[in-house]
């Protein structure tokens, strides 16, 4: 059995619903007239499972083409954009705004098919770090380090 879109959708929402129900059982459910903290998440979790049943039903009844094979090449833009975000998040506390900006621009450069040359990348990184440094550190005074 190969993964089709409805099957994958069903599995995603089944696990989300199951997760919500599992977490909600750890909270006090309360009664209908006095809802506890677990009541609403439990209802949502059950509804999610019902919705996932519809997706799974669709997956069984009709023929859907399987989701194409996922290769590194096909998810490269996503992977690189996420890597750039992650690198920025990790580096901003340690290395400061300027270096993390350079890091983000350099990593995200690889995400597209049309790539910026190295010199324009360097210029872009320099211009952007000067701009955000001025705007967010100097003018708006966000609690950020500029340098390590």
């Amino acid at each position, binding site marked *: 059995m190969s993964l089709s*879109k409805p099957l*994958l*959708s069903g599995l*995603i*929402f089944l696990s*989300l619903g199951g997760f*919500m129900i599992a*977490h909600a059982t750890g*909270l*006090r459910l309360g*009664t*209908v*007239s*006095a*809802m*506890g*903290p*677990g*009541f*609403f*998440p439990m209802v*949502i*979790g059950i*509804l*999610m499972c019902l*919705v*996932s049943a*519809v*997706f799974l039903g669709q997956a069984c009844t009709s023929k859907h083409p399987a989701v194409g094979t996922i290769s590194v090449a096909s998810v490269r*833009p*996503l992977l690189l*954009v*996420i890597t*750039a*975000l*992650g690198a*920025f*998040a*990790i580096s*901003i*506390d340690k290395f400061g705004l300027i270096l993390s*900006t350079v890091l*983000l*621009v350099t990593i*995200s*450069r690889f*995400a*597209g*098919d*049309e*790539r*910026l040359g190295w010199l*324009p990348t360097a210029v*872009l990184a320099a211009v*952007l770090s000067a701009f*955000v440094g001025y705007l*967010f550190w100097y003018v*708006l005074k*966000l609690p*950020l380090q500029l340098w390590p």
Partner: protein
Amino acid sequence: MDLFANLSLGFSVALSPANLLYCLVGVTVGTLIGVLPGIGPMATIAILLPVTFGLDPVAALIMLAGIYYGSMYGSAITSILLNTPGHAASAVVCLDGYPLARNGQGGLALVISALSSFVGGSLAIILVMTFAPMVAEFGLRFSSPEYFSMLILGLTAAAGLSQGSFIKGIAMVLLGLGIGTVGTDLTSGVQRFTFDNWNLADGINFVILAMGFFAVTEIVFNLEQKGRSTLVHTRFAMADLTAAVRSFARMWGAVLRGFGIGFTFGALPGSGPTIATFVAYSAEKSVARDSSRFGKGALEGVAGPESANNSASIAGLIPTLTLGVPGDAIMAMMLGALLIFGITPGPGVIVDEPELFWGLVASLWIGNVLLLALNIPLIGVWARVLTIPYKLLYPSILLFICIGVFSINNRTFDIGLLALFSVVGYVLAKLDFPAAPVLLGLILGPMIEDHLRRALLMGRGDFSMFFTRPISAILLLATLGIVIYVIVSTIQQARQARARDETEVRQ
């Protein structure tokens, strides 16, 4: 207070130099970012929202409104000149706007679009001033059961009337409601889904979700796309303006029809500009003597939907501000912003915050005038913004998204959350799930839970009051009507598709 006293209060607020400046900045920056290909109004507002968090509520809302219609107009420019709509509501404008641009009439199409938006919007503002206080008075009769039913209607409509499958819309609403339960439960003080991480104790800010599901996902999708639409070069001279105004004079019917359609759909909870533009377009097509011109550059195909778009956007303020039930995801973000500023939208807003309400209404009109005055001369500039290569743009946008997310709570944890939402948003978008309902669910979730709890407390756990209280019963009946309509039309489509398959097989 009568209307004129209210209006003078509104204009005195909106015309104060500071607020005028915020309005101007909002309109300009909104258009500038909205014009950037692949950045729609949703992403534009999400990116610019953190900027307004430092302002006082009135100024922030005025600036946000400016950003909103600025970005809508910017999105229309991209649709007409580049054939890439930034928002579903602009998709219709592409149909005739882009052919016009290819015939060398891009400037004409843009002026018609701006003038139609202006007229449709101005008329809608007049109706908002008359109707909003009435709706608010009606809303004063609402209590928790009515609010609960109203919110259910709004969410069902948002899931059912948007494009794509109804059940996927419902799934996304549920996902949003689920994400909305993360954090401290306000009634009991219990931590839900926080896993002892104090960064989650205050819940998840909707801006982070919006940036992940809309802005970053849009960027990744753009990067995956191979072929790019070609930009139509547009020159614009003042001589074209007089010609455009002359042809606009023939568009009155289309503009008025668009305004009426837009206002009706915008004012209804759960529907918004997107449906309004589609209905307005088909209305123009059926009214026209020669409907074959449509799709090849009919000016009515630009004027009607653009008037409807702006009229619906402004009418959407009525349910959002007076009942607290937004019509679409953009209005939901406006509502979320108000909540951040400590204002709970509802029937009391007009009475309790007259400066906010009337100031906003007045600034809507001023903003529309500014948009017109600013944009017609600047058409050439906006067209040039479109030529900025994407490889230069997206790293810059990613950087501003990151810093924007950081600035909401001044913590890096939120950037990690952004990365998580980007992946989830991307996967769900690949599986054809609509993104707007998740945002509505997240913003409205805590309100729904609260009203449900209060209603059940009032009725001592008896669900029947949702059906015995007349207003609540009507709202739930309307919800049922939408569900039945969606199911019936889905079955019909499936039957037609099967019939088509069979004839193909026979041939």
